[in-house]
């Protein structure tokens, strides 16, 4: 430890000497700060950036621009007492070519926000306190005149970076995605022949758009799809059992399905959501079921006998503000898979502000990785009807004012012992609660099992959840047999400060965190619970959270369960929770609370 410190100090002194060539003399206090800064690989500052379109057209999100539209870029920066010394760089990147245009001078040459080039040396600065500060646009802090977007069709990213004082190491970045398009095209109600949606346009869903008749719908990276509120029926993109969706975005060019409403007034349920249906087995006795209010023909009945069914591929896809009412008392989920089989792909998906569940599986056996659920109004991961797939890496944030269940797992509501048994295998989820009352259900544990649920739930982290960690219903009669048969287990469950504001506050003990009827059956062999402060870095800064473990966090232990070596699971994720040291949510996601975007 001591040796390490010396090394850092030495590096720091070298850096200070290099820096001071260009600097006036400094006080001891300033020098100490500089030294401290050098030792940092990270910053505790929180910040986010966003852009609005001054020429926004009604029915189009602020993400969409036509060439020549005026853009306003804003940012909020909370230094969190970590103010000195840093450099700040901001640029716009055209993701089709990768060309970066640096602010404030609109140069391709790299500058910091003061316009200083690398050659000139970036200007060190205290981190500014920006509260919805205009950076670019009339009265902007960086560019004070109105700025028109260039005629470069496709996705662009606004990036603001905090770098160390040398300007070389990027400590933290904020991203904002937008697209310049030539037009917004209306998608037809039925897509019956294969077609590709390209990012030079945006697309509008009116009602239910069904991909059917063996058509393949391909969505190019960086394409934005828009659903409008109030549509009857609700706007839903439905991939029927005889259709396929290939929506492979990239980290820099995610595919965004979002609300048509202006920033700050978007709401959960502005539009329906994304639904993929296949012919893998479900455990209803009929073998296949419709999605109510959405299916309008036999191809909308999911479930069958083909566990290899290919619903398509989803990669880097954001579904935002989905969950419109499709029937009374029933909203659509952000992502729904019904009877999807093993050939289907799903990774790097974000459900943002969903009214119903963020990710829901109705039967089937498709896998998924890298899921982000933010501020949903219902459950985050919901499985039923005999889902048997594998899921790894997930981070889920309850909104600051509401939360519901983290995982809600059923075998089948109408036959607790239906087969095939709903028996998913899940590893590495982090659930950050708001400690606020449940949205739909007053009994909203982080992990909730009922109706004959099987499954293996491992390395889950629940922090600050409304109700206690682990609960359920119909446990003795429907889940106990699964525990006895080795079909239900919960291992590596780290729980801290859950249910502390309940009417009868829970304590950080096993007995308090696990429902009584579960305690009787969760034998030590079937579970491994950890009750310890997870020491996450900054989990409750909603618009810019950081759920990686601090140094010394108990999420890292050599003894924790290692995911199996089965070709799907990443064995190297030997920590509890959805994130170790590496933030896989960077760039393609959005965490900003809607209230933080209001002008």
């Amino acid at each position, binding site marked *: 430890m001591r040796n390490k410190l010396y090394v850092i100090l030495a590096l720091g002194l070298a850096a200070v000497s290099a820096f001071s060539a260009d600097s006036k003399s400094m006080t001891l206090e300033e020098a100490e700060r500089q030294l401290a800064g050098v030792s940092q690989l990270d910053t505790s500052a929180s910040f986010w950036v966003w852009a609005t379109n001054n020429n926004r057209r009604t029915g189009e999100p602020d993400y969409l621009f036509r060439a020549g539209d005026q853009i306003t870029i804003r940012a909020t920066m909370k230094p969190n007492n970590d103010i000195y010394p840093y450099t700040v760089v901001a640029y716009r990147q055209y993701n089709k070519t990768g060309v970066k245009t640096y602010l404030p001078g609109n140069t391709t040459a790299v500058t910091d926000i003061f316009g200083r080039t690398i050659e000139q040396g970036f200007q060190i600065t205290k981190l500014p306190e920006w509260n919805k500060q205009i950076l670019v646009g009339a009265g902007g802090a960086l560019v004070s005149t109105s700025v028109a977007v260039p005629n470069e069709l496709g996705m662009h990213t606004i990036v603001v970076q905090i770098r160390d004082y040398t300007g070389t190491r990027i400590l933290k970045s904020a991203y904002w995605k937008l697209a310049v398009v030539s037009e917004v095209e209306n998608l037809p109600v039925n897509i019956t022949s294969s077609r590709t949606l390209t990012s030079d346009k945006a697309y509008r869903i009116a009602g239910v758009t069904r991909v059917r008749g063996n058509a393949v719908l391909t969505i190019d990276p960086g394409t934005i799809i828009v659903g409008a509120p109030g549509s009857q029926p609700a706007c839903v993109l439905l991939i029927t059992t005889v259709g396929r969706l290939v929506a492979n975005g990239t980290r820099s060019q995610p595919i965004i399905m979002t609300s048509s409403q202006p920033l700050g007034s978007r709401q959960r349920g502005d539009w329906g959501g994304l639904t993929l249906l296949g012919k893998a087995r479900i455990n209803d006795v009929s073998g296949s079921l419709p999605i*109510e209010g959405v299916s309008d023909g036999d191809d909308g009945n999911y479930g069958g006998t083909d566990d290899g069914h290919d619903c398509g591929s989803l990669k880097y896809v954001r579904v935002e503000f989905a969950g419109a009412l499709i029937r009374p008392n*029933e909203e659509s989920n952000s992502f729904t898979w019904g009877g999807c089989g093993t050939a289907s792909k799903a990774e790097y998906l974000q459900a943002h502000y969903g009214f119903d569940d963020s990710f829901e599986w109705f039967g089937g056996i498709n896998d998924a990785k890298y899921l982000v659920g933010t501020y949903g109004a219902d459950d985050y991961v919901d499985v039923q009807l005999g889902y048997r797939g594998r899921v790894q890496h997930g981070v889920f944030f309850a909104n600051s*004012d509401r939360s519901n269940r983290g995982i809600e797992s059923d075998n089948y509501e*109408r036959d607790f012992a239906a087969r095939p048994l709903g028996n998913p295998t899940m590893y590495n989820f982090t659930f950050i609660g708001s400690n606020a*009352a449940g949205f739909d259900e007053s009994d909203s544990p982080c992990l909730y099992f009922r109706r004959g649920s099987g499954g293996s739930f491992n390395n889950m982290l629940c922090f600050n959840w409304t109700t206690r960690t682990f609960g359920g219903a119909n446990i003795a009669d429907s889940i106990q047999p699964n525990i006895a048969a080795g079909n239900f287990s919960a291992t590596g469950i780290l729980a801290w400060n859950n249910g502390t504001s309940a*009417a009868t506050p829970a304590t950080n003990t096993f007995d308090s965190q696990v429902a009584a009827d579960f305690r009787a059956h969760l034998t030590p062999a079937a579970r491994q619970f950890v009750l310890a402060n997870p020491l996450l870095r900054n989990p409750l800064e909603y618009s810019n959270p950081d759920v990686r473990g601090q140094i010394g966090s108990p999420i890292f232990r050599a003894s924790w369960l290692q995911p199996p070596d089965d070709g799907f699971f990443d064995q190297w994720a030997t920590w509890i929770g959805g994130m170790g040291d590496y933030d896989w949510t960077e760039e393609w996601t959005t965490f900003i609370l809607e209230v933080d975007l209001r002008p």
Partner: protein
Amino acid sequence: MNLFVNLVLFSVLAQSPQPSKGTVSGTVFDATSGRPIPNIQIAVDGIADSRVITDPDGRYTLTLSPGKYKLRFTGPNHIETTIADVEVKAGESANASTVMQQQGAVTTVEVNEKIGAIESNAESILTERKLAATVSDSISKDDIKNSTASDAAAALEKVTGISVVDNGFVFVRGLGERYSATMLNNAIIPTTEPERRVVPLDLFPSNLIDNIKVLKTYSPDLPGEFSGGLVQMNTVEFPTKKILQVSVNYGFNTQTTFQSFRSAQGGLRSPPSSIPADRRLFVGQFTDQEFQNFGRSFPVDYEPQVRSSARPSQSYSVVGGNTFGKLGVVGAFTIANTLSRTPQLQRFLVNRGGGQAGIFSQYDDFHIDNESSRLAGVLNLAYKLTPSSQLLLRNTLTRDSDNEVRQFTGLNGGIGNDVLDTRFRFVERQFFSSSLEGEHAFASLKNSILHWQFTYSDSRRDEPDLRQTIRGRESGTNDPFTFLNLGDSGFRFFNGLRDKIYEPQADWGVPFFKGNVSGLFKVGFRSTFRRRDFDSRRFRFQPVRLQTLNFTLPDNQVLSTQNIRPDGFVLREVTRGTDKYAAEMDVIGGFAMVDLNLGAKLRLVGGIRVEDANIGVITVDPLIPNARPSTAILINRDPLPAINLIYAVGKRQNLRGGYSRTINRPDFRELSPFEFTNIVGGYSTVGNPNITRALIDNLDVRYEFFPGGNQVMAVSYFYKRFTDPIEQIYSPTASELRQSFINVAGAKNQGVELEWRSNLDRFSKKLRDFSVQSNFTFVDSNVDIPVDRFPQLTSRARPLVGQSRFIYNAIAEWAKPKLRSQARFYLNSVSRRITDVGSFRLPDIYQERNTFIDFVYQYNLTESGKWNMRFSAENLSDNQYRYKQSDILVRSFRIGRTFTIGTSYTFF
């Protein structure tokens, strides 16, 4: 309106001077067919007046000075008949009805020379039945009056083969409301219920009804949509003398009266006027401020008020009528108010695996407190244009409302919490029917009779401002309930239904007489144009920032006006695109039939009807300009043959046999491919545009024995085969079960009915004050479900929904005119029946056998019988209503015993 007319009428009646003359009136029937005979000449003491002839209904009225007279009846095709010693008293009306034999035919059935009054008493109804062309059972005004029944539905419970389900829907021979139709004054009437095909009969107070007939076999002059039975109600008949009667009743229910009672107030009658009527409240199209204003325009009233003591039920009615020369007028008016409390247990089961039932939700404390108010009136007018033709105008208006508070607590398995659910519901139903009818007998045209009728009926049902809140707490704890943010919590719902029927009809009958063969040839048509409009709007208060709200406060404080704000509760419209629909059904039917007497013993009634039906349902989102309407259409033409044979085994015995083919059409909602959520039931329902109408083959045999007087013995057997019958199915959705409709492979329904009505003096003279009647029905039905297509349904074969295997009624009557007393004792027993079809390996839900005992005692306070006291005890057994699924009690409640005391006074 009717109230006013009635009041005027009665004041006129009360002032008219005492007449010095009396009247004689009656009806002349054909002894073979039972049809009334028009144009029969009546001579008084040998003096014939060409103006004194029977009208198209076979009726006549004579005004004579007091004295004794001899009446002689003559007609071209009938044997002369005489009634001697008809006594006429000043100011009173004597009855002198008769039956005339056809020339060339010998007497086939023996009928009393004098068959009572035209107004229905049990005996005349029985005579009518004996002579009827089809199998029917009926209940007369006397029977209704002497029972505990306060409405048509309750009255029908005593009829052979009838059971009444859900307070108003009639099951005839085990066939549900899908297979029964209701006619009022010979016109098809629209329904007030969006989910039902027929009008609930509890809408019609018994005071307004003269008689109810249930036709069980078909004849071609009836609408083709007929299978279980056709309920024909007739409102009060025209008086032959001046009448005025008032009555008052008070009822005490052991479970309700003087108990604490929850009631609701403060509901709106329509959505607040600040909310645009033609625009959906889209987010984004209105500002936060506007939404706040919309939300604040709803009064805050979600908590029931508790009355410490519920008042007794009460009803008041008046009936009056008179004849003014050629004009006959009768009116009736009634108002009633009844409170009822029904605490109950409700459970919902789930398949825990392998069909093993477990309790999913359980509400031990489920209360329904309802205040029901009713107002109804009838005003009928008849005008004799000439002795052989008359016009009738009949108007019926009923209006009732239910103001219901439903509250329950218990475990809700769907959300895994204990819930406290409070719902206020106000339903107002109104039915209006007006018909103009003409009857003309043409002596010059072979005594043919033309009957025409035009009826306009209009049903409305308004359910404004249904309010519901749901609160929850962790199950098994005693924590206070906190407000839950669910789709139907903080919910306000408005809906209205309007169903209209325009029905012109006419028929022309020509009697013919040729030696041994006589009969009636009849052709006619009936067009039924039905129009429906349904409209609803749904709103809910949705919380935005929960930490700004305290959900532990009572509902009125959680949803208080100051909490309706952009970061508190916001109003959201959740009206669906299918919440408004318009539907129309046009059925045009024509028929030709013959009623043929072949010699003395055999009578044949047969013919064919052809019906064209055109059903269309149009759903369009009213709140989206230029929304695309969606349409479902079904067009059919069906020939419907029917034949009925009546063989007179002896003078007092009939043997009847009949075959007919009838149809059953899908209802509006069953056809439309749109999803509706049942207003009442809770299941969501999606129609099936592929269903077709079902065909039904009906076979009936009946043996009847009429020993004389008010006595009968009858045995019937019936068999019905259904092709493509429409049945309900259930399939799961993500969150609930959904109901739909299919044509199943087939179904059959057969049964035996026994009826016995006798005076006991035949057994012992000591028992001469007693008479008994009883009826027994055995029904066996079976539906075949194509399991491969509908694997969710548990039963592969089962009885029809709502069919009881046994229905038993017994009535014992004791009448002692000397003591001015009459008492009746009723026993009604209904065996178990399916109320809900089981799915997902859960068995069907059965309502268990139940037995009801009622008692009525009447005493005439005056010798003349003008002032009458009445005491009734209803539901003396007060058995629990029990519903079971897989041997688990899923619902149980009692309705309490009701003791009613009433009096009626007849002015004249």
